[in-house]
């Protein structure tokens, strides 16, 4: 069974996959910081660390960029 954070995160990652990797990864990270509760962000980091195969590579990279605190304003849907 796929972890919910992997399923939801992969859905986000697919939306940004057409962008250059660096841009996409930053956008995914900002989106997750804005809308995900901290325990879900922690779970995503755990998955990236221990089970990265479950994650879209862009999502796995984004997990490494997550700030500890929520983004203060909503990021652009597309940078």
């Amino acid at each position, binding site marked *: 069974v796929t972890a*919910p954070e992997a*399923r*939801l995160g992969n*859905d*986000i990652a*697919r*939306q940004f*996959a*057409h962008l250059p990797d660096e841009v996409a990864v930053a956008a995914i990270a900002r*989106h997750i910081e*804005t*809308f*995900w*509760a*901290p*325990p*879900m962000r922690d779970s995503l980091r755990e998955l990236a660390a221990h089970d990265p195969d479950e994650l879209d590579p862009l999502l796995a990279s984004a997990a490494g960029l997550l700030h500890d*605190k*929520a*983004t*203060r*304003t*909503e990021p*652009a*849907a*597309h940078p």
Partner: protein
Amino acid sequence: MTTETAAWAPERDYGTPGTAATQTVDVTIDGRSVSVPAGTSVMRAASEAGVDIPKLCATDSLKAFGSCRMCVVEVGDVDGMRKGAPAACTTPCADGMVVDTRTDQVRRLRRNVMELYLSDHPVDCDGCSRGNCEIQALATTVGSAEVRYGRPESRDGVARPAPVDDSNPYFAFDPASCIVCSRCVRACSDIQGTFALTVEGRGFESTISPGGTDFLSSECVSCGACVQACPTSALQEHSIIQLGMPTRSVDTTCAYCGVGCSFRAEVTGAGPDDPEARVVRMVPTKAGGANEGHSCVKGRFAYGYAAHRDRQLSPMVRDSLDDEWRAVSWDEAITRVADGFKAIQSEHGVGAIGGISSSRCTNEEVYVVQKMVRAAFGNNNIDTCARVCHSPTGYGLKQTFGTSAGTQDFKSVEKTDVILLIGANPTDAHPVFASRMKRRLRAGAQLIVADPRRIDLVRSPHVEAQHHLPLLPGSNVAFVNAMAHVVVTEGLHDQEFLRERCEDVDAYLAFIADPVHSPEATEEITGVPADELRAAALLFARGDNSAIYYGLGVTEHSQGSTMVMGMANLAMITGNIGREGVGVNPLRGQNNVQGSCDMGSFPHEFPGYRHVSDDGVRGIYEELWGRTLDPEPGLRIPNMFDSALGGTFRGLYVQGEDIAQSDPNTHHVEAALRAMDLVVVQDLFLNETARFAHVFLPGTSFLEKDGTFTNAERRINRVRPVFGSKVGKDEWEITCAIGRAMGYDMHYDDAAQIMDEIAATTPTFAGVSFARLDEEGSMQWPVNDAAPSGTPTMHVDHFVRGKGRLVETEFVPTTERSTRKFPLILTTGRILSQYNVGAQTRRTSNNTWHPEDILEIHPADAEMRGITTGDLVDLSSRVGSTTLRALVSERIPAGVVYTTFHHPVTGANVVTTDNSDWATNCPEYKVTAVQVGVANARGETTAAAAEHPLPLVEPVETHA
């Protein structure tokens, strides 16, 4: 509690509609001078001057007809030249006109006309004796005490005796009382736009007919406009016969769909606390900004659920889900809730509990729930049922325009030339707005329907769409990109608007001009022939005022948010934003779904769509509420379920949402609910979710609420209590009591005080108060110093976010695909007579029209499977299966099946999946890969019925 109630009096009837003319003319009527807009009828001018002219066929909701001849007046011009005795309703005022309504000639004419009417009107007309008939009063007024031609003694003695048509569950038609004034026929055609009624025969043989059959079998949609228009008791509500005429009335707002119609609840009894008081009827008010005097079968008639025997009036608790419910005091129930939540938090952490607020509740009730969660629970685990319907609207319109709401008022459609309707079925789901739309279409506007299903608006009496684009479920973004591609590559984009008002323009234009977005390249994805899509795009781009209206067929997809942004792009590149007649207009599902979102029901946002991490905003609430607030977003509804199954989320307060029936993948939801230590349900009924609850708190119906609802056009309407709370508390009081029992002091004297707090802390509501709403009738937010009476049209000179942002809306297909095992795509929708999961409408006679959910299947798919109409079929997806009856129909394309989700026995959401919108997690209800086959057990009971212990609720006629 403040209960504003007035002695019963119908809204004033000026006889003919007003005109929009700004130029005025002066006339003299019975010696009184009056100044009216040019084009105003003599009848209306007289009424405004305080002179009542007798009338039968005239009413101000309908154009003048001039048939009854009761309103004759004498008209002289300025030179004293007699102009004879014309009908006041059809004669427009001319400057200097002199009118006399009281001359001997006029009196004689009227008396004669009335005698002719009475000569075929039975003496024992029950409407006359009851007081629900204008003829009796008028006969007295015009002095027709005696009828020289005689009167039929009974209804059997009229010229053309006919049986009463009792087929409709809410009203009867008695031809004996009918005077064939055609008000009903005109109401059906001009107001409702259904054209179900006609006049059959000539002379004494003339009779009103619903197309040669009875009302129930006819095309009648039971909106009740004919009943309201009828001047006699020929068309009369059963409730009038059962309960008599009302004694008082209360102006309030409907609690069904997002149109938010204004109604006058007409009531019997001495006052709000009279236990015998009953609603006699709901009459739509002409002053209502959303509906202007019209209604549908739900709002007008389906209020009986509020007094249904299933209604729970006492708090109840039980120790385990296997135990029987035990009625307890409010104190015991509240203590149980608070102790349970505190115990969970002390063992599993502050974030282990949360709440869900309801779009069926008032702004004030919803605001208090999010306050309880944020301040008393100490986390942001608050979400609302908008999660499963229009959350992508909030996200998409905020990203592009800067505010999470539609751009227009409903009236705007009167200025629209081209309507693009996407994924919405207004004649079923938003019927009162649909009537407005049809009126505009009859007046010449053109229509493009983008929907897999051939909805009624594609072709119905006097309405035909120029284009029906039956796009495949899941292909919306490809479709809207193709529309924009045609506009841009044909050079039809509004370059000035883009230059002045928008940003990211060049990047977007380059993106969308790429041939991968062309109708030809996307034809295989959308299923829409390229040439037809091109023609539709050109029509939209060339319209003077083109407007987009959309529903859940846009939002409930894995790319719902992207699609909302795609529509915003299309509106911006064609310059269709910021004036009347244009815009991007969500047709919101529930009565207060806009309001519940506005009131901070999302886990990442305070009221007014301000992120919880914003120190300034959080500071406002921390100071006012006296608590440190969590700066991090909380859990959304599906996150709560996932966390419950993971063991970290263990307590839930659910107000007025039946998540076990309405949320996707029912088995998953039920497992999550079972995994929790404490589930608290606050509702009118023991709903499906209550099967998993430990505490039940009885809620109040809209007839008992004091507060406000905000409709799809951002219109804040007052909801006023018709009765006192039947459960002893207002819903916000229950919420406050839980907060207090958990150690956080929250208290209000009344609902008005809650709105004052909302206004003080939310800039878009700054100018809102109950007193101001009572003055204005309603106001559309933003209401502030710049717009003290509200804002009908948004983004007029600039967007709320400054420049409108064009977003590159890449089409990313859903992962839900048809396979060999599940070769069909299921999509879902609503039907006129039922509402959402049916908790209300199933407890009314609306079941007459829709007693069960039906699966529509294309003839080719049906034949392949040996399915014929009426067969029980199994519907299965990768997550679950159910059984329902099939209807073979060409309304849906081959490869797609369709059903509604109104009945728990069907449980359509047993088959829907966990897939959701990437940005907001709005479920992908509209795309599920399924298989359909003839059920093994053809017979009376279905497999689904056997699995669900709740019996089908039989139609019960009750009165609130």
